[in-house]
């Protein structure tokens, strides 16, 4: 962030008159505000998009009445929830009950401090960014257990307990996979991990070696479980626990849970993008766009560069978010014992195996072999994607379905 702010200050006369720390403070506050707005808008739009995707997957249409194509549906829901009475159960622990949503929200929001949006737009590029992210995300579990316990409701308590067990277990494969990536990139800084990769798919971590490809799945499933997303949404399993830990909440406090859930959806996508899909790396694209627009001044050139990188990063994360949403409407919920089975019997051994083998690989295999393997892996990835769409076409042909490609109808 600092280089970018310095650049703005050097360009702007008024800011040069102010003390340096003051302009830094102002800019950081502005960026925090921007991120806050981003989280709010993302939560709204993701809630809407999720319902539209769910609708089409279930051969329905989804909300399309409020605003153009129903885009304001989440806003309408938000207003409705705001106007609800704020109820605190009589036998609840009042202080903890009020406190819990903030723990969850702070845990989610602090993660955004370290998540970059482009090469220069990141609130704080910490040297131990990824470590910080792991630590901060665990704050959420405290909030969830707290809300479950304080509600004095057996469903809430069960939801909170399940969530604690789940998040603590899935932290292990996630941490191991992150360790693997850190080992491979040689840095714990998130920007460093991104810069160790490249713009082209064969420079992404995921296609470097087969082991890194496999390692993506423990991380992805682990983050799904930590974010209480389907198929691991045990803490809020509607059919079993009413709504889990947030059963007793209403009004504004419920909105906070809702925000936390959807900002977490973005975090899942962003984390996977950072670690495996090359983050904001856009290669020659920013220079190309700058040339196209004929931009000369260094400040606007920097802004355009960051914007292009932002778009690249957003595109990758939103693709992953889409996959997360699609998974929710594809898979049934797993049972608690299956959940633990998957974690301890499958993900943890696989993550360990990958860690060890990649360690050996990095020592033994020369650089050029890794490059060739990366190219082959990319080809395999493209083939896999092609096979996916071939199967989709086969499904459509086999069921003689009537097609409608327009996503908005």
């Amino acid at each position, binding site marked *: 962030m600092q280089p970018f702010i310095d650049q703005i200050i050097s360009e702007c006369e008024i800011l040069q008159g102010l003390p340096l720390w003051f302009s830094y403070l102002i800019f950081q506050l502005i960026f925090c505000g921007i991120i806050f707005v981003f989280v709010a808008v993302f939560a709204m739009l993701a809630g809407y998009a999720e319902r539209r995707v769910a609708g089409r997957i279930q051969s*329905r249409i989804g909300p399309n009445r409020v605003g153009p194509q129903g885009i304001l549906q989440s806003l309408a829901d938000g207003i409705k929830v705001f106007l609800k009475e704020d109820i605190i159960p009589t036998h609840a622990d009042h202080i903890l009950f009020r406190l819990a949503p903030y723990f969850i929200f702070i845990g989610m929001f602090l993660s955004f401090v370290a998540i970059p949006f482009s090469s220069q737009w990141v609130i704080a590029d910490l040297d131990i960014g990824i470590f910080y992210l792991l630590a901060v995300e665990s704050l959420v579990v405290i909030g969830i257990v707290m809300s479950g316990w304080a509600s004095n409701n057996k469903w809430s308590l069960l939801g909170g307990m399940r969530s604690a067990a789940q998040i603590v277990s899935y932290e292990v494969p996630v941490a191991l996979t992150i360790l693997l990536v850190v080992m491979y990139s040689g840095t714990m800084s998130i920007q460093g991990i991104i810069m160790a990769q490249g713009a082209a798919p064969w420079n992404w971590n995921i296609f470097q070696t087969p082991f890194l490809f496999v390692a993506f799945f423990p991380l992805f499933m682990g983050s799904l479980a930590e974010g209480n997303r389907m198929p691991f949404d045990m803490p809020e399993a509607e059919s079993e626990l009413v709504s889990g830990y947030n059963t007793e909440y209403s009004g504004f406090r419920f909105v906070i849970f809702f925000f936390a859930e959807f900002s977490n959806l973005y975090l899942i996508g962003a984390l996977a993008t950072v670690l495996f899909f090359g983050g904001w790396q856009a290669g020659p694209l920013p220079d190309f766009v700058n040339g196209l627009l004929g931009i000369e001044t260094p400040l606007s050139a920097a802004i355009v560069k960051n914007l292009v990188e932002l778009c690249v990063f957003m595109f990758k994360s939103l693709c992953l978010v889409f996959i997360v949403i699609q998974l929710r409407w594809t898979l049934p919920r797993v049972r608690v014992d299956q959940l633990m089975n998957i974690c301890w019997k499958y993900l943890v051994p696989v993550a360990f195996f990958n860690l060890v083998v990649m360690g050996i690989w990095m020592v033994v295999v020369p650089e050029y072999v890794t490059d060739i393997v990366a190219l082959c892996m990319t080809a395999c990835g493209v083939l896999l994607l092609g096979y996916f769409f071939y*199967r*989709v076409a086969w499904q459509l042909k086999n069921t003689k379905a009537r097609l*409608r490609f327009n996503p908005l109808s």
Partner: protein
Amino acid sequence: MRERHPRSVNFEIPRYILFMTYFSNIKTAVSTVFEGMTITFSHLLREPMTIQYPDRTPLPVKDTLPPRYRGFLCVRPEICTACTLCQKTCPIDCIVIEHSKDEELKQRVMTRFDIDMAKCMFCGLCTEQCSTGAIYFTNEFEASTSNIKDLVFKFIKQGEKVIPYKIPRKKKPAAAAAETQAAAKEKKE
């Protein structure tokens, strides 16, 4: 000695088979999730089944109903004979007809004909009874309202007096037959 059922034979599953199930489990998980994702993705490209009732249907739903649909009841007071048969047959007394001798006009008049559609069960008994077809079913069916009293349909306004319809006296059967024969002859020519 009794033979043991083969299923109860207690035999140890070899280690390597357990090991293979581990990998086959992973394989099943991966392939089924992949297949499931292709199916759900293909659904994204399919036509939704939703019919966007009331306002976005290709035709108004009212016009797509079959001709003998049982919607709201409607009455044509001008051909009602005030026989009150419909009122008497209705099993749940939704129909209220009031008729009395009017002093000024020196004859019977109807002063009230209410049907409570909130109670009606659309059995159709009243329409079958009616000798003139004055009471009949329409295609209207959208009954939602904020006040249930709105569903009491009044076919004669308050204070209005309707003179009941008189069915023309029937001709003698023989005369009637002769007339129809004459009419048929006329048509032929």
